């Protein structure tokens, strides 16, 4: 184990951490927390996408969706494997935790119920994942994760392209356009929330100095906006954000954060902005699909649990 100053010196010098004895306990605990969020997000996306894939318009589309789900499970496996190498009991993590203990973003707890919602998720949520993991890939000081992300990054490209291609197809279909706009209306702001507390409420000092991430929440949110907003505008879809050339950044045009009616998938903007503490409370309560998605993952294990105990 290194002292904190020796560890920071190592990271500043651009030398990667390859093993726990290249770092210290605070670093490893921070790394584990970050890896658990990433692993849970990839894992829970699989049952969330699988549910909506049942609505695929044809066999090829269904096969594409299944390919994406398979990739997500592979990405989850990579992150859990890194955790296992750090001494974490990953079977307990995946199969023994209660649904509300999972660390995936709240967005996945709002059920995806149609092909339209699935492809918007591939374009919006996978883009968020791509932005976040891209940042980890470029900046992480943990060698094993950096190497593993080369493959993940490439596969996410395909997911984005699939989502954006299908959004273009639906945008050109007069019969599907309204449905697409409705999905964009609730999913856009939910993805903005995904990036977490704004910088003035969150100190990243430790995460950034330890090289667990490179950019701040607001910078990453801006990065997502900088591709998603022009893409939606090109398709003629309304989004509640625009580029402010004077400020040199994207500006959100609705109260944010706001209250969300998860049952009806509707933002209650008319009630004005809420606090981030309110958002954190909603996240902790988790959303309507939380139990169902986690049960899907744990179903087989639950069946063999008695035999394992014996």
């Amino acid at each position: 184990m290194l002292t904190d100053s020796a560890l920071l010196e190592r990271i500043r010098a651009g030398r990667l951490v390859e093993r726990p004895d290249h770092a210290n306990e605070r670093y490893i605990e921070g790394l584990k927390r970050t890896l658990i969020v990433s692993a849970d997000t990839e894992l829970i996306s699989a049952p969330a996408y699988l549910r909506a894939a049942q609505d695929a318009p044809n066999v090829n589309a269904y096969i594409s969706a299944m390919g994406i789900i398979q990739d997500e499970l592979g990405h989850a496996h990579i992150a859990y494997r890194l955790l296992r190498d750090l001494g974490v009991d990953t079977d307990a993590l995946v199969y023994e935790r209660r649904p509300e203990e999972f660390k995936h973003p709240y967005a996945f707890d709002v059920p995806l119920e149609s092909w339209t919602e699935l492809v918007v998720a591939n374009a919006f949520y996978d883009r968020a994942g791509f932005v976040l993991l891209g940042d980890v890939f470029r900046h992480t000081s943990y060698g094993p994760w950096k190497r593993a992300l080369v493959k993940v990054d490439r596969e996410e490209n395909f997911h984005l392209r699939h989502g954006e291609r299908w959004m273009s197809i639906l945008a050109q279909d007069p019969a599907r356009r309204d449905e697409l706009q409705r999905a964009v209306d609730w999913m856009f702001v939910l993805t903005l929330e995904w990036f977490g507390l704004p910088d003035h409420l969150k100190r990243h000092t430790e995460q950034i100095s330890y090289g667990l991430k490179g950019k701040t929440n607001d910078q990453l949110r801006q990065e997502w906006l900088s591709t998603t907003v022009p893409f939606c505008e090109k398709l003629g879809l309304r989004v509640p954000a625009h580029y402010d050339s004077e400020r040199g950044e994207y500006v959100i045009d609705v109260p944010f954060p706001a209250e969300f009616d998860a049952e009806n998938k509707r933002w209650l903007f008319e009630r004005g902005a809420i606090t981030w503490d309110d958002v954190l409370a909603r996240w902790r309560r988790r959303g309507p699909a939380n139990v169902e998605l986690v049960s899907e993952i744990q179903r087989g294990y639950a069946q063999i649990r008695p035999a394992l105990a014996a």
Partner: protein
Amino acid sequence: MATEAEVRSALGEVLDPEYPISILDLGLVRGIEVEGDKVRVKLTFTSLGCPCVELIREDVRSRLRAIEGVHQVEIEEVFEPWDASAISRKGREILRSLGVC
């Protein structure tokens, strides 16, 4: 009229939707015929359940149509068996650098 070599070189620019390896290096192209303004390409895929069939077809069509003198592109899916031995040496190096094989 486009030549077969031109078509082959254009297909060398069509990349797999996941990895930056061309479908030529991946060994998916199983035949090229040029007849007047029409190009016929035979394609196989890495598996029957390949999730990228539509994307690859779209990319082949749009790249070949960009060749001067090509107005029609016909893609025949031959589903010939494919395995890793069909990948070119260059392709293998690219995949290895990504930790894939």
